[in-house]
């Protein structure tokens, strides 16, 4: 009787997660429209509050060689690097990252990042995909440590302001080129100011990563994105998390087969390499959860009281 109840609840869970996964492209598109606010439309519609939110840097702190200091919403990595270069503590940016990470971990990467979404779309082109080894994901922390923290701080000590520093994440970031430089260029052209708001170097890096996305799934996120790396550190502690339900597992291997980021799903479900696209939940044995799971039991406790189907 209990097995039957388990089976029907497993099926319900499976249906629910499959429906959620079908909605994922729509949710990513919705976030893309939200981040596309640099085109100015949203802020123009929001009256006084909107005008207080400079649309030019709604997402990227650095576009066209200029910084907007009054940005309410901008890339926390850019803010961190900028403030570190001045020897100031980037409390706002760190607070935003810690809060988002503690609540949802890297769910932001899989469901809200527009650059990740574009890489997802390009990865659908049916060409053979390369699979970089797991250790390459440490590149994200090298970028974070070197380009966001160490170099800006070190060069900043010499008195050189961040916007004059040559080697910074903001000058190289392809996500910033896509989400701020390109929209600003389009906006300028529409307003009769044809001016390229992306440096040739940054544009070339963007093109390289877009081409790379055809052959490696999410190369930027996987290898270099410092923000994704930071958020992923919280995967093991975040309120939202994934958990494995032993009784629902039929050893079908679907979870590992569907993971585009090559996370060892069977060994480390909430790995820092996971972007929480939740494709692995398709099989129904891996479930998304927040706070306590339904039934209030921990995985360890439930494993002792339930038997896997067919056992």
């Amino acid at each position, binding site marked *: 009787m209990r097995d039957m109840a388990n089976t029907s609840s497993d099926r319900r869970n499976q249906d629910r997660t499959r429906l959620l*996964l079908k909605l994922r492209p729509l949710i990513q598109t919705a976030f893309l429209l939200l981040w596309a606010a*640099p085109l100015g439309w949203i802020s123009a519609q929001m009256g*006084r509050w909107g*005008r*207080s*939110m400079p*649309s*030019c840097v709604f997402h990227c702190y650095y576009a066209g060689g*200029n910084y*907007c*200091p*009054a940005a*309410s919403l901008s890339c926390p990595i850019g*803010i961190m690097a*900028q403030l570190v270069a*001045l*020897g*100031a503590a*980037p*409390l*706002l*940016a*760190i*607070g*935003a990252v*810690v*809060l988002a*990470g*503690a*609540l949802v971990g890297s769910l932001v990467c899989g469901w809200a990042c527009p650059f990740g979404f574009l890489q997802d779309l390009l990865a659908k082109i049916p060409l053979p995909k390369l699979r970089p080894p797991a250790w390459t994901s440490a590149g994200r922390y090298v970028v974070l440590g070197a380009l966001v923290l160490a170099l800006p701080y070190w060069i900043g000590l010499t008195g050189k*302001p*961040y*916007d004059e520093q040559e080697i910074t994440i903001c000058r190289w970031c392809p996500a910033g080129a896509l989400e701020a430089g390109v929209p*600003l260029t389009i*906006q*300028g052209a529409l307003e009769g*100011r044809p001016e390229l708001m992306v440096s040739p170097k940054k544009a070339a890096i963007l093109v390289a990563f877009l081409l790379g996305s055809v052959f490696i799934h999410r190369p930027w996120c996987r290898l270099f994105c410092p923000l994704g790396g930071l958020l992923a550190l*919280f995967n093991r502690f*975040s*309120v939202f*998390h994934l*958990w494995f339900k*032993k009784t629902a*597992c039929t*050893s079908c*291997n679907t979870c*590992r*087969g*569907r993971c*585009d980021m090559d996370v060892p799903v*069977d*060994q*480390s*479900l909430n790995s820092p390499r996971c972007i929480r696209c939740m494709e692995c939940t398709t099989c129904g044995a891996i479930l998304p959860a927040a*706070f306590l799971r339904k039934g209030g039991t*921990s*995985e*360890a*406790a439930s494993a002792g009281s339930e038997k*896997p189907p067919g056992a």
Partner: protein
Amino acid sequence: MAKIRNIQQPEIDPESRPSEARKPWRGILLAVVGLALLLMGAHASHTVYFGGSNQKVSQSKLVRTVTANLVQRPLTGQPTTQSVTTNLQKDSGQADCPT
């Protein structure tokens, strides 16, 4: 839906999967710490250095102030705040802020 990749992988043994039992208070505690940092940062970002003294300003006033180039860099040794951390000098040919 993406197709399942045909990769040779060892059989999954559900019993051997590591338990990832959680302590939800850790996430909540981290979220509280993040919120506190966020509020402290927001407070700092709205404190602007006007020739000699730090003043607290609203977001809309901050935008007007910055776009009018009234914010000054703090003197060496003074605490920097987020709103004075920028390149405030406009080039002559540079376009205005879209807002």
